[in-house]
């Protein structure tokens, strides 16, 4: 296969089936440095969990069951499905230096290590104790997470955008189209092509026709 075609496929397409997903997101430069396209790493075995059985969502409060911070509760900051990882805010941390250059050793920060899904459980919001979770259906037919111990429904956390924008509190700037103007339907279907429609509206007369040419 052509080299350029291969490179373009690698650039735009998905990742190979044996790509090692890490805490760096795959499109970042750090991840590209660790996992360049030709690299093969030792395989990590990941317990296959179906999409329907995954019960932790970003923003949930979970409790850690094993590890350094056993027994502590924290909010889920990131979920990495490829490795069954859950990263909590400020828990299960190790310390490292970041941004070192020259002689400056960098800032000493706490960085969170990922936890496997089987090492965390969701927390019942009513009594704030850890509990097992099942997926059940309400009477309306909605699929919800129910704690096995108490039987209460655990609601999904409110979705927050990563850039911190709350759509209801957004103030339109001068270059923003208002919602009414956006949702206005001004399209009238007709049998004309766009070009013919535009020519009619702008009163453009075009009587010349391209010369006929033939190819065999």
């Amino acid at each position, binding site marked *: 296969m052509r*080299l350029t075609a291969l490179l373009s496929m690698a650039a735009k397409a998905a990742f190979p089936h044996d790509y090692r997903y890490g805490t760096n997101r795959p499109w970042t430069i750090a991840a590209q440095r660790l996992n360049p396209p*030709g690299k093969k790493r030792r395989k990590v075995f990941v317990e296959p969990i179906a999409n329907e059985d995954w019960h932790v969502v970003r923003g949930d409060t979970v409790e850690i069951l094993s590890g350094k911070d056993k027994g502590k509760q924290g909010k889920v900051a990131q979920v990495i499905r490829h490795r069954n990882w859950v990263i909590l805010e400020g828990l299960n941390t190790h310390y490292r230096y970041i941004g070192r250059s020259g002689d400056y050793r960098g800032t000493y920060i706490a960085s969170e290590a990922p936890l496997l899904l089987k090492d965390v459980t969701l927390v019942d919001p009513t009594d704030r104790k850890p509990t097992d979770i099942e997926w059940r259906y309400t009477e309306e037919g909605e699929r919800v997470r129910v704690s096995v111990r108490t039987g209460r429904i655990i609601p999904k956390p409110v979705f927050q955008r990563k850039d911190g924008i709350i759509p209801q509190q*957004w103030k339109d700037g001068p270059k*923003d189209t208002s919602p009414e*103007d956006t949702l206005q339907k001004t399209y009238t279907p007709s049998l004309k092509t766009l*070009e013919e429609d535009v020519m009619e509206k702008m009163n453009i007369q075009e009587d010349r026709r391209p010369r006929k040419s033939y190819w065999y």
Partner: protein
Amino acid sequence: MGVLSALMRGLVRGADRMAEFTSKRGPRTFYKSRGARPTGVLTASRKFIPVQAMIPEFVVPSLEGFNLKPYVSYKTPAGTEQPMTPEMLFNQVLAPQIERDIEEGVFSEENLEKYGLEKTQEGKLFKLHPKNFVR
């Protein structure tokens, strides 16, 4: 060299023979265009005569009462409209007229031009088949 060796291990070392030979490569006598359309004619004495008809001219309508801006507000609810298919177009534009004519008893298959359907694409500036416009 670092990129090449890291990426393609096991392949032949050396220049990438399959890379596109653009106008940025080759000796300085090598000329190749990058795809811009010509705006005139080059004569035999190597003089270039610009032809006004080949130079694109933007005809912009007046933007009075035009409220759409470059960006969309975050308050807009999410959702998409179904893309227009030929069936939908027929149902919205032609079907009412044809049904009305059938009920009146005036519908005839030889007289389809009055609904906007064309017998032949000859003489049209924008032909549908063979399609002679880019969009």
